[in-house]
């Protein structure tokens, strides 16, 4: 199936989503926390994070989510296609760590005039530890 977008993609079961790598730097994360008025000290106070048993300041799930949607939108080139995203958190991501988003299409459903493309994804540290995983459903409506 080919989508109408600037860069049409053929979707097939088993197809991999091009991986996306990002390093969340302390300076950038600090600016993000100020932007959203973060109040949870786990995300900006090293002593607090260590007191709770973490090795460093923990990156919030909402910031990680920003990269998941960017990754998928950059791939499909259309923001309307994302219908839902599930996220299960695993190991914490610390500041200055690099993560890689990987995923693939596991199912394509035809429902009326809709094609639902179901992708499984995971986010790993470079060490291979899983920090997040879930499912992304993309919906393509065929108007013909």
């Amino acid at each position, binding site marked *: 199936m080919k989508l109408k977008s600037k860069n049409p993609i053929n979707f097939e079961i088993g197809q991999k989503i091009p991986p996306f790598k990002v390093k969340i730097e302390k300076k950038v994360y600090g600016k993000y926390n100020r932007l959203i*008025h973060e109040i*949870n000290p786990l995300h900006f106070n090293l002593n607090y994070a260590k007191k709770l048993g973490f090795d460093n300041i923990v990156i919030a799930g*909402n910031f990680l*989510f*920003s*990269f998941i*949607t960017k990754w998928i*939108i950059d791939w499909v080139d259309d923001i309307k296609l994302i219908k839902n995203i*599930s996220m299960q*958190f695993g190991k914490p991501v610390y500041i200055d760590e690099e993560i890689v988003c990987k995923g693939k299409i596991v199912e394509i459903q035809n429902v009326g005039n809709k094609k639902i493309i179901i992708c499984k994804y995971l986010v790993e540290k470079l060490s291979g530890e899983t920090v997040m995983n879930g499912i992304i459903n993309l919906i393509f409506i065929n108007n013909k």
Partner: protein
Amino acid sequence: MAGSKTQLVKKFKTRIKEVVREMRTQEIDIDEREINKFCELIDDNNSIYLDDAVAIKTGYKGRLIPPGYFMSITNRAISQFFIIIGPEFYQKFATGVIHTSSEIEFYSAMLLNKKYKVKIDLTEPVKKTGKKGTYYSVVFKTSVLDENDTIYAIDNHEFFIKLAGDR
């Protein structure tokens, strides 16, 4: 001992519901500066978030709020819960809170320069026991709506809350 624990759980459930009721809906203002900054931080140069002319040419009424910013909006609303409940939350009830999962549903693209509000509904806390002990799972169903109550997106934001005395 068991009786006091039952009382604590009951008070915890009652109090979190009271706070969410007190919060009702919150109006949110998201301006261009905020979205420009967000896009810069995540290195997203998609013009539909940054340029009205491009967004209009693409078929929208103007610039859009990146879908990736949605959870930053819901997070802000949920933070209000913790601000309102205040120190009482840790003094009386919880010894730990962790965001364990989210299920996000998108319904419509969010236009920038439009008024939105956030509404939170709470699920009944469910007791769960696993490798890391006993927790209560609480889902904050956080919806972003416009003035006409049209829903743009929902985040089912799940926390595991460890209550005092639980292992």
